[in-house]
């Protein structure tokens, strides 16, 4: 367990993972559930246990849509999306760990794709 990493994720997210009562509502309402290896309730639990490297190395961190459904619907106000965000930041802030590079962009474009999609993707996938 990487204690510094856990502290960093807790501080960055501002989330108290101990409030979670493991009801699974966050994962039940998550629009990316099927695409995730680790689901929102597992992010909360695994951060509590300090098992953060596993999450950082999983593609699940790039599947969160930041739709705030889990934040809105958690009966305990845990705000799991903020945990996912903090873990993803811990991953992409590492040197050479950007998940999206500008050279990939031209192939992704079509004539209708809004700029909003590109700037949001960079905010989520790169530093």
């Amino acid at each position, binding site marked *: 367990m990487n204690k510094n990493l856990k502290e960093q994720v807790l*501080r*960055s*997210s*501002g989330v108290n993972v101990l409030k979670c009562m493991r009801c699974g509502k966050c994962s039940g309402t998550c*629009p*990316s559930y*099927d*695409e995730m290896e680790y689901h929102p309730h597992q992010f909360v639990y695994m951060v509590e246990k300090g098992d953060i490297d596993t999450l950082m190395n999983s593609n699940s961190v*790039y*599947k969160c*849509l*930041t*739709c*705030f*459904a889990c*934040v*809105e619907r958690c009966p305990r106000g845990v*705000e799991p*999306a*903020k945990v996912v*965000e*903090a873990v993803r*930041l811990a991953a992409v802030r590492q040197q050479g760990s950007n998940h*999206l590079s500008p050279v990939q962009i031209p192939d*992704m474009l*079509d004539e*209708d*794709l*809004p*700029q*909003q*999609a*590109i*700037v*949001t*993707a960079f*905010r*989520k*996938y790169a530093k």
Partner: protein
Amino acid sequence: MKTFTYYPGCTLRTKAKDLDAYARSCAEALGIALEEPADWQCCGGAYTTAKDEIATKLSAVRTLNAAKQAGNPLVTVCSACHNVIKQTNYDISRDEDMAQKVNNYLKLDEAYTGETTVYHYLEMLRDVVGFDNIKSKVTKPLKGKKIAAYYGCLLLRPAKILAMDNPENPTIMEDFIKAIGGTPVIYAQRNECCGGYITMEDKAQAVKRSSAVMNSAADMGADMVITACPLCLYNLKKNSGSQIPVYYFTELLAEALGLKEDTNE
């Protein structure tokens, strides 16, 4: 005439020019003056919730401060800009540490700590113009049209911060539809995510999400879907495979107010 500082955002200048143009013409017709700040920057598209992210919040604060300097409330049309700017404003008014760091960066003459009131355009229509007032100005009501309001994720959530409507049973867009003479269609997926920017990362997921939304609207008999968000419009049109037309809400408002030719649909 009431004056608002108006923040269009990046996409309204490029791929969503209709959303912008109709927002401007309708505001004028409804007695609202929109003043665009001189040198606004893109909001970034998504609010970074992390407490140790400061630089990604600065552009939103610059916009908020421009409205403060002008002495106006701030209005945005795009759901994403609205979400980023309202969340930034909420956090800077409550998180002293974040506020201090942001202000250290910006070096404003006077620190910005959340003084500006932020409206989404729909809120402005409801709370400042008034839906009854709009109804009285409608010359071409969308009579007989069954219109499905698509809220998506960013317009309503997190509800305690956006403070716009009930996040699970919203009414603002349905009330808007009634004001322009249409018939609102309530469907299960109206406040679930369209897939958003995941269309860049995983097209199949965007197809799945946007299809679920459009199928849900179709099941309830919608003739058309309206949205406030350019990325929702893109996903619902391009990724859902549905033939049901999707419009910006400002376009239908312009049509109802007689500011636009008929869409023939």
